[in-house]
């Protein structure tokens, strides 16, 4: 029997039961669509995070005080040295680093006239603006100069400025942070909410020297360094580590690159995507059982037809193939419809939330189609075997 004739015969049988065909196709379509939609969500989350990191600049080296890694050595090993402005100054002299920025962070209450607002305050230097790729809405950022300098300038995030000054022009105004007075020199352009760390729109920025005294801290929160040449990231990281080891006489800082963080986040979210796809494929199994049910009903209902085909000389393998072809076509048709529905759903999501980069990864398309094919084949075997085992005499005896 030619393959095309086989398909034609199966199509004819499916067309003979339109409602039943439509329902089992819908079952598979829903399964495939949900696999695709959930995969797209997971993949979207992964891309969102990766993009978020990329917007921070991918050639950053981040230095934290303290050793995060667990080693086999002394469990409460040695003294952790502070990460100081002197360390920062030493790092700034390294040739491979274009910019180095010290960061001190604390939550403080900004007060202006009767209003108070608790915001994250970041102590840093002028170069922070370029390192984080920020833009000004009004005024200027912190002035360049010696980080130790106890300046009284403050720069506000857009949201912080709006909520504290309520429409008044904040530039030149004086506000208090704890006992200290600052005058506002600039307002940042809004950057949008960030999933990572602090929301810069509601933060305030002051000179790092002032901040250390204000927060009563001796150690920086971290130092962020921008490497000149992306290819030299690892070299730069090693140099930073060597320098600090020499200065602290111990390896008591953690240095990581944006790259490593992107990679690990990407891996975590990739696993999340796979999990979501796995959960969604449960619905495919349900759809497969639906196909099996439909095919079993079909075999029972078409006993006379099967008996007739046997009487006409159809061999058992041909009958098996004919029923398998039917089941597989049900599933494949459902797979294609589900693909279309899933793609439409993701398109809709992208239209409603343009910021969220939901997208169906190519592997998911392939996997969904393969899966639907396998579902049809796998769940079609048993009914098809039942069809071939029918005794033609008994099958023909009834009308």
């Amino acid at each position: 029997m030619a393959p095309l004739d086989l398909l034609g015969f199966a199509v004819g049988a499916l067309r003979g039961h339109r409602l039943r065909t439509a329902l089992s196709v819908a079952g598979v379509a829903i399964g495939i669509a949900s696999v695709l939609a959930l995969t797209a969500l997971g993949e979207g989350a992964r891309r969102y995070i990766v993009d978020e990191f990329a917007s921070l600049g991918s050639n950053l080296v981040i230095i934290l005080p303290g050793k995060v890694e667990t080693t086999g050595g002394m469990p409460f090993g040695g003294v952790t040295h502070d990460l100081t402005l002197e360390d920062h100054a030493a790092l700034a002299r390294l040739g491979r680093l274009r910019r180095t920025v010290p960061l001190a962070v604390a939550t403080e209450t900004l007060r202006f006239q009767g209003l108070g607002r608790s915001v994250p305050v970041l102590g840093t230097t002028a170069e922070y603006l370029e390192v984080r790729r920020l833009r000004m809405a009004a005024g200027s950022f912190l002035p360049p100069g010696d980080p130790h300098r106890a300046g009284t300038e403050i720069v506000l995030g857009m949201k912080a400025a709006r909520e504290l000054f309520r429409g008044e022009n904040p530039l030149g105004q004086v506000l208090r942070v704890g006992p200290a007075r600052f005058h506002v020199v600039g307002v940042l352009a809004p950057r949008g909410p960030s999933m990572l760390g602090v929301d810069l729109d509601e933060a305030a920025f002051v000179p790092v020297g002032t901040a250390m005294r204000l927060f009563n801290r001796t150690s920086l929160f971290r130092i962020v360094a921008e490497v000149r040449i992306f290819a030299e990231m690892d070299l730069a990281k090693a140099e930073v580590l060597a320098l600090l080891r020499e200065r602290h006489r111990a390896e008591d800082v953690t240095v990581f690159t944006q790259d490593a963080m992107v990679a690990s986040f990407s891996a975590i979210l990739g696993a999340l995507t796979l999990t979501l796809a796995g959960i969604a494929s449960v619905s495919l199994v349900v759809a497969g059982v639906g196909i099996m049910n439909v095919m079993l009903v079909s075999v029972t209902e078409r006993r006379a037809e099967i008996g007739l085909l046997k009487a006409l000389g159809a061999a058992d393998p041909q009958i098996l193939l004919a029923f398998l072809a039917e089941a597989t076509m049900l599933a494949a048709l459902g797979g294609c419809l589900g693909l279309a529905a899933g793609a439409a759903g993701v398109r809709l999501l992208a239209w409603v939330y343009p910021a969220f980069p939901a997208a169906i990864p190519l592997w998911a398309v392939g996997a969904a189609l393969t899966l639907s094919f396998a579902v049809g084949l796998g769940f079609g075997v048993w009914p098809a075997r039942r069809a071939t085992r029918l005794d033609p005499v008994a099958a023909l005896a009834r009308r």
Partner: protein
Amino acid sequence: MIQLEGVWRTYPMGEGVVHALRDISLGIAPGEHVALIGPSGSGKSTLLHILGCLDRPTRGRYRFEGREVGALPDGERSLLRRNRIGFVFQFFHLLPRLTAQGNVELPMLFGGVPREERKARAARALASVGLLARAGHRPDQLSGGERQRTAIARAVVMDPAVLLADEPTGNLDRASAQEVMGVLEAMNRQGLTLVVVTHDPVLAGRAKRVVHLSDGALADPPAEA
């Protein structure tokens, strides 16, 4: 062409055994027109199924065209049914989703006959039963007689050696029955071996040879017939 020697067919039934056929020995020559007649339950359908390789004898020998076929594997028996044996049933057994033409093409579909040849041969077979004009109609658009003639076209399209008909007119009115028997007898005149199962003595009387079955065994004609 057909030789049965001491054929038995038994079914297990609860504790005991039902003897559907008892020690049947029968020979049918090529080109014969034989009627199998007997009351219902006499085993005539079982005999027809054994002749058609749909069922196997429990005991005894069945030779078809000189080959011992009672013990052939399923695949070979399928080929035999496809190429050498045609079936006509009381309830037609046409597939409702296919046209008359499609139904006649079915055996060729499973026989792997190419599409064009299939169409031509189906058209010839339909013409031979006088239904060429109805080739595009589905079974529910055909009368009972037309349906049975379509089934006959399907049975002979593979050019079989023997046509086995199980109550071919049992579901038809008198005029349609005449028509259908006319077609079958015309084919018999052209050399097709014809075996018709019936319980209608009038119909059986049209055959050149009548075989009586009673309680699973060959019997003499009843006195009152």
